[in-house]
């Protein structure tokens, strides 16, 4: 490649920058997302497939897990064909914002920070974030993390909470997906990792040799579906859907099937 090309590339970048900072995108007028879903009979929902027990790839090669089952039920009740948009943990919200998905159903914990960007529906599950690690790692509380290497996944509740609890001298390493975080833990690349208690349990169950145990709980949270902020009517519909399926026990059944734990009482948003 010639240097001239690179220089001209700089010019092209400048042009793109000008285009990007100019008037923002035109909106598709008229139809709300809920209207469009009903008209096209098609709904696109995020699927995070390396996040046990919420979403994994089943032995038939298809997505499986509690959030996957929730998304399937949601699409069925919408009367729409479901299209999964496979995302990594970091891309759950960007996929929604970029319009690649209509709804994010990927164990998104409800936080005020996230709510500045997306609109949350009523919660349909609860989780706690724990620090887990092999037996030989001596951690009893947050203070013991000093000097240890702790793996976290970007764009998750653990990323938002564990650094605040970590004392000075804690070495935090970040991955884009829960999968690599778990691999780093199992391969001994890190001393411990932050993840949901369910994920920790499923890692421990599936790898009895590794001796993974929960060290302490960092925080607890509720998670729910999220939509773009403009999609008010869709959010109302999902709220209603959560209400109905909480009462008829469908959500509790899904939750219990995959997590092995009873669904705690859910507050409303």
């Amino acid at each position, binding site marked *: 490649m010639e240097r001239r090309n*690179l220089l001209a590339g*700089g010019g092209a970048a400048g042009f793109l920058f000008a285009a990007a*900072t100019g008037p*923002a995108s035109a909106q598709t007028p008229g139809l709300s997302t809920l209207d469009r879903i009903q008209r096209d009979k098609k709904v696109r929902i995020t699927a995070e497939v390396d996040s046990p027990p919420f979403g994994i790839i089943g032995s038939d090669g298809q997505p499986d897990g509690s959030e996957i089952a929730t998304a399937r039920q949601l699409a069925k009740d919408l009367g729409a064909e479901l299209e999964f948009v496979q995302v990594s943990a*970091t891309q759950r919200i960007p996929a929604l914002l970029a319009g690649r998905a209509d709804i994010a159903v990927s164990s998104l914990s409800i936080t005020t920070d996230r709510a500045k960007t997306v609109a949350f529906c009523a919660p349909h599950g609860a989780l706690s974030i724990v620090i887990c690690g092999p037996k030989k790692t001596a951690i009893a509380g947050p203070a013991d993390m000093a000097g240890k290497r702790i793996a976290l996944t*970007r764009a998750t509740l653990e*990323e938002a909470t564990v650094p605040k609890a970590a004392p000075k001298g804690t070495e935090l390493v970040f991955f884009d997906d829960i999968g690599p975080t778990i691999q*780093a833990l199992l*391969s001994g690349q890190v001393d411990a990792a932050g993840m949901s208690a369910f994920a920790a349990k499923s890692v421990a169950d599936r790898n009895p040799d590794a001796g993974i145990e929960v060290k302490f709980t960092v925080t607890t949270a509720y998670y729910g579906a999220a939509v773009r902020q403009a999609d008010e009517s869709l959010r109302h519909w999902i709220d209603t859907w959560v209400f109905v399926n909480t009462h008829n026990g469908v959500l509790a059944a899904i939750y219990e099937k995959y997590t092995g734990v009873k669904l705690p009482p859910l507050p409303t948003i």
Partner: protein
Amino acid sequence: MGYVFQFGVVWEHLPELLAGALLTLRLSVGAFVLGLLLAVLLTYARGYGSRAVRGPVVAYIEFMRNTPLLVQLFVLYFSLPAIGVRLGANQAALLGLALNFAAYGAEILRGGMQAVPVGQIEAANALGLRRWRVFRHVVLMPALRVAYPALASQFVLMMLGSSVVSAISATDLTAVTNTLQSTTFRGFEFYFVATGIYLAMALAARAGLDVAYRWLFPPLLRLRSA
């Protein structure tokens, strides 16, 4: 969707982005130096080694050049601990980049060596110089001179390709960008600026390597390279 651009938040986090860019630069330069040394050894082994040495060397070069860097990094970082080799993310990234660059460097140097006239080597041999000295002075240096432009291009390619080291939690420019986008939700703005930083680094590297060429190989002696 009515996305409103907010580049202000990017400037607030500029120091972090620059720290990431610095690591990208350090990894690339480190891998270049290590990789080039290894490439010279590989080239020597390939040219002068016995058959038992040449086979594995060629296999190594071919394997590294025909598999993605990302997968090589996964093997180094996630697979090797299973046999007791444990590297930190940044170390694994440096090693992965260097091992990868070495294979390309060896291939480029071989091309450069073919430009050295056989008569020149025979003359040096006739003078009774040792094999390594012949290799170093008569073969390697002229080959490096010829191969320099290709090596420089490969360096820029590696620097840009190093963006995948974020996947094994190394904290390069891409990793910093990912972290910032996940905490601020201004993904587009951060990716845009990070792309600009990469472009600027590629430009600067090009310019720097051109200057280094003129300094290392003074024009008086420079061979014509195609």
